[in-house]
C-alpha cells in the first residue's frame, strides 16, 4: 500500500477545474481519504461528479490546486505511475470490457504492466474469485448478462491490485438480486472505494462516508447515515431521501408523534 | 458487390492482395505518423458501427425498395482516408469470416474494390479538395453523392475486370459491364444520399468530428499538393506492380490469359458447328435474350471425361462412409469408456 505522509491514499486540496476557460465545474474541493474507506459521492445530474472522478484518474490534468494519489502529485510526468494505483469502473460495462473473452480482459491490465505470465494467471484467478465469477472465465463478453458484465468489469480492475477503486454508477441497470450480490462483493473489497451513484440506498449499503456535491462544491462530508437521513439537506440540493431511509425517517416522526 | 473466392483465379487474387497490402502499408505508416493513440479505439468502434449500419434498411422515396450503407466514404470523412482504409479492411475481414460475405482469397480484391476507391479516391481526391475552404450543407451533399457514385462505379468495374481476367466465365465483357455498372449507379446514388444525410447531421451537431475541413490555407495547399502527388505516385507504382505480376503469370500460363484477353476484347465469334449443339442452340433460341455469341477454345480445355467424374464421385462416397464410420466407432468407444 502506497500512502502519503499522514497515511492518506488520496489528498485533494483547493482543487478547481473548468473546461476551456468557461464556467468553473469544480470549485475549491478539499477531500482526504484513507485506505479501507468507502466513500459515496452524491449529487444531482450535471453537478460535476463524473468530472471529479475523471480528474482523479488523470484523464484531465488542467486543474488548479493539489491532487495527490498514493503519495504522488498528479501531473503529466506521474500519470503512468499513478494509474497503476487507481482503477476506474465505467458506468457502461460494454465500454470497460473491450476484449472478447473475460479472461483476456481481466489479464489486460497486468499484462500491460509487464508482469510474467504466471503472475498474470494468478492475478486473473484471484480477481475472478473475488467477484465470484470464476466459472465465467472463458466466456465471451458478448454473451454475459448485465450483472455478470458488471462483476467482470470490477474484476478487470481488481486484477491490477489498485489502492483506489473508483466506480461510476455501479448499480445502474442491475436487477435486485444482482444489486444485492454487488453490495456484498463491494463490502469485501478492502481498497479505498469511491462510488458515485444516484442510488442512495446503494450508497447507504456500501459506503460509511458520504460526500454531497452541488454546483461544483462539496456541500457536506460525513457519515452516510447522517447525510442520507437529512431530508432538508438532500432536498435543498435536488436529491430525495433513500427509500430505506425514508421508512426510517417516517418511523422516527411517528415515534415522536406517538 | 463482394467478390467470392470462386470468381477469382489465384493470379488475380494474389495481384489484388499485393495491391491492397501496398495501400495498407502506406496507411499504417500515415496513421503511425499521426501518433494519436486514441485513433485505434475510435477506428475499432466506428468499424463496428459501420458494420451494424450496413444491416439497416433505408426506404428509397418513390419506390418500394430499400437501400443500404456501405460506409467507406463515411468512414473516411470521419477518420481520414488512411485510418478509414484500415478500418474498412477490418470490417471486410470480419464480414468474410463471420458471415461468409466475400472470401479469404478474394479479400484482396474486396479490399481494393470497396475500401481503396471509397477511402483514397473518395476522400483524398473528392472530399478533401471540396472541403478545403470550409464545408457547407451543399458541399457535403455534393461530395457524398459524387464520391459514392464514382467509387462504386470504379469498384463495380474492377469486379468485372477481375472476374473476366480470372477466365471462369463465358460472359462477354459488354454484357457483364452493361449489367454491373447501371445497377451500381443506382446503389451508389442512394448510398451517396444516405451518407450525405448522416454527414450533414454530424456537420451541424459536431463539425469538429469531420475530417479535412477548412484546413488553414497554406497547410492545406502544401498538404493537398503533397497528398495528390503521393496518391498519384502510389497509384502509379501499384499499377506498374499489378501489370508486372499479371504479365508474369501470363508468361507462365499463356493459354488462360490469352483466352481471357480475347474474351475481354470480344473479338472471337466462332460459329457453332455440328449436331452436338442442337440442344444447346435450341435453348439459346428459346431464351433469345442472349446475343448470338459462342466461343470455343479447345486448346485450353484440359478436358475431363465421364469416367473420370464417376471415379472421383466413388472416391468421395467412400470417404464419406469412412468418416462416418470413424465418428461412429469413436463415439461408441468413448461411450464404452464413459460407461
Amino acid at each position, binding site marked *: 500500500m502506497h500512502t502519503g505522509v499522514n497515511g492518506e491514499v488520496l489528498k485533494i486540496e483547493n482543487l478547481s477545474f473548468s473546461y476551456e476557460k468557461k464556467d468553473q465545474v469544480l470549485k475549491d474541493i478539499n477531500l482526504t481519504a484513507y485506505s479501507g474507506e468507502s466513500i459515496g459521492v452524491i449529487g444531482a445530474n450535471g453537478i460535476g461528479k463524473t468530472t471529479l472522478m475523471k480528474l482523479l484518474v488523470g484523464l484531465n490534468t488542467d486543474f488548479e490546486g493539489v491532487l495527490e494519489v498514493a503519495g504522488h502529485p498528479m501531473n503529466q510526468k506521474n500519470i503512468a505511475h499513478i494509474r497503476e494505483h487507481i482503477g476506474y469502473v465505467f458506468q457502461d460495462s460494454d465500454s470497460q470490457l473491450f476484449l472478447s473473452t473475460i479472461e483476456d480482459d481481466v489479464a489486460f491490465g497486468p499484462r500491460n504492466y509487464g508482469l510474467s505470465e504466471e503472475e498474470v494467471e494468478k492475478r486473473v484467478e484471484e480477481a475472478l474469485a473475488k467477484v465470484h465469477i470464476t466459472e465465467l472465465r472463458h466466456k465471451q463478453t458478448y454473451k454475459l448478462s448485465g450483472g455478470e458484465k458488471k462483476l467482470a468489469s470490477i474484476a478487470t480492475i481488481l486484477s491490477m491490485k489498485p489502492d483506489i477503486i473508483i466506480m461510476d454508477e455501479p448499480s445502474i441497470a442491475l436487477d435486485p438480486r444482482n444489486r444485492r450480490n454487488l453490495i456484498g462483493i463491494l463490502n469485501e473489497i478492502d481498497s479505498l472505494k469511491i462510488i458515485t451513484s444516484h442510488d442512495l440506498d446503494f450508497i447507504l449499503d456500501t459506503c460509511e462516508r458520504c460526500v454531497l456535491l452541488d454546483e461544483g462544491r462539496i456541500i457536506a462530508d460525513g457519515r452516510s447515515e447522517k447525510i442520507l437521513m437529512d431530508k432538508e439537506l438532500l432536498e435543498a440540493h435536488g436529491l430525495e431521501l433513500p427509500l430505506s431511509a425514508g421508512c426510517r425517517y417516517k418511523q422516527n416522526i411517528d415515534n415522536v408523534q406517538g | 458487390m463482394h467478390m467470392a473466392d470462386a470468381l477469382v483465379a489465384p493470379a488475380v487474387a494474389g495481384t489484388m492482395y499485393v495491391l491492397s497490402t501496398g495501400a495498407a502499408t502506406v496507411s499504417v505508416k500515415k496513421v503511425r505518423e499521426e501518433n494519436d493513440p486514441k485513433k485505434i479505439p475510435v477506428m*475499432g468502434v466506428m468499424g463496428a458501427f459501420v458494420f451494424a449500419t450496413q444491416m439497416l434498411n433505408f426506404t428509397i422515396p418513390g419506390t418500394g425498395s430499400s437501400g443500404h450503407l456501405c460506409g467507406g466514404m463515411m468512414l473516411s470523412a470521419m477518420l481520414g482516408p488512411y485510418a478509414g482504409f484500415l478500418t474498412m479492411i477490418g470490417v471486410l475481414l*470480419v464480414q468474410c469470416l463471420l458471415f461468409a460475405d466475400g472470401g479469404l482469397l478474394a479479400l484482396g480484391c474486396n479490399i481494393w474494390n470497396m475500401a481503396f476507391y471509397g477511402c483514397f479516391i473518395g476522400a483524398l481526391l473528392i472530399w478533401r479538395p471540396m472541403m478545403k475552404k470550409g464545408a457547407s450543407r451543399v458541399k457535403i451533399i455534393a461530395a457524398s453523392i459524387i464520391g459514392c457514385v464514382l467509387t462504386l462505379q470504379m469498384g463495380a468495374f474492377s469486379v468485372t475486370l477481375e472476374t473476366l481476367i480470372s477466365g471462369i466465365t463465358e460472359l462477354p465483357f459488354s454484357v457483364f459491364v452493361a449489367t454491373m455498372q447501371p445497377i451500381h449507379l443506382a446503389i451508389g446514388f442512394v448510398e451517396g444520399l444516405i451518407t450525405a444525410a*448522416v454527414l450533414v447531421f454530424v456537420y451541424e451537431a459536431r463539425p469538429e468530428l469531420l475530417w479535412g475541413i477548412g484546413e488553414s490555407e497554406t497547410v492545406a495547399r502544401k498538404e493537398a499538393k503533397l497528398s495528390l502527388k503521393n496518391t498519384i505516385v502510389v497509384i502509379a507504382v501499384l499499377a506498374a506492380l499489378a501489370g508486372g505480376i499479371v504479365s508474369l503469370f501470363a508468361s507462365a500460363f499463356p493459354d488462360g490469359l490469352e483466352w481471357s484477353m480475347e474474351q475481354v476484347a470480344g473479338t472471337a465469334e466462332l460459329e457453332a458447328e455440328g449436331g452436338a449443339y442442337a440442344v444447346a*442452340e435450341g435453348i439459346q433460341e428459346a431464351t433469345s435474350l442472349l446475343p448470338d455469341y459462342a466461343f470455343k477454345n479447345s486448346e485450353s480445355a484440359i478436358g475431363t471425361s465421364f469416367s473420370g467424374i464417376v471415379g472421383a464421385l466413388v472416391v468421395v462416397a467412400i470417404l464419406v462412409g469412412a468418416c462416418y464410420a470413424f465418428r461412429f466407432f469413436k463415439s461408441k468407444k468413448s461411450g464404452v469408456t464413459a460407461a
Partner: protein
Amino acid sequence: MSKIEKNIRELNKLQNLQQRSHWMNDLHPLGKLLLSVIYIFITVSFGKYSLAPLIIMAIYPIFGFIIGELSIKEGLYRMRLILPLVVFVGIFNPFFDRQVMFYIGGSGGQTGIPVTEGIISMVTLMLKGFYSVLSAYILIATTSIDDICYALRILHVPKQIVIVIMLIYRYFGVMAAEADRITTAYKLRAPKQNGIHYKAWGTLVGQWLLRSMDRAEDVYESMLLRGFKGDFIMKKQKTRPIDIIYPLIWTIAFIVIRHVLIRFL
C-alpha cells in the same frame, strides 16, 4: 426475423461452436488459417473443365464437417450472400460454350446425352464456390476471431490492423443490438414503413454515430487506465507436433490431387 436478428443469431451460433471442446478447436490457429487459405488457393487454381479432380477436393470439407461434427446445413446456408454473383457469372456458360466434351450413355450408332464444356465449367465454378465457403466455415467454426488475430500477428500483420479487427469483432455484437433496438423503436412508431424514411436518415444514423464516437472515447479511456501503450499483448500459444502435422498432411494431399491425380482422371 429481421436481418439484424439473423446476424446476431448467426454470431451466437458461431461463438458456441468456437467454444466447443473438440480437438480441431485446439489446433494452433496459424496452421488452420494457412490450411484454409492453401485449400482455397489450390481449389480455385483448377482449370475450368477439371471437374473430376475438383470433385476429389471435396475430401477436405467432407472430413471437416463429419469429423468436426459441423452442420452441413449451416455451412450451405452461408452461401446465400455470394451465391447471386456466382450464379450470374456461371449460369451463362452453358449457353456460350457449347463444345461437347463427352456423352453420357449411348452405344453403337446412338449418341448419348451430350455434356458440353459450358455445363462442366458452370458446375466447376459452383463447386469452387461451395468448397471455399465450406472450408472458411470449418475455419471460423473451430477458431475464434481472437485466435485468428493471434495468427495474423505471427504473420506480421501490423498491430494497427489487428487491434482494429479485434475491436470490430467485440463491438459488432454491441452495435448490432443497438441497431436492433433503434429499428424496433422506429418500426413501432412507423408501422407502415418497411425501412427508415428518408427524412430520418440523417438524424437517426447521425445520433447513433455521435453516441458511438462517445463510446469510442470511453473505450479509449478504459484502455488507457489499464496501461494501454499502443499494443494488445497476447498470450503465447504452444505449438504441438499435431499443429504442424495436420495442416502439412492436408497440404500434401491437395498438391497430390492438383498435380498427380489430375493426370489419371
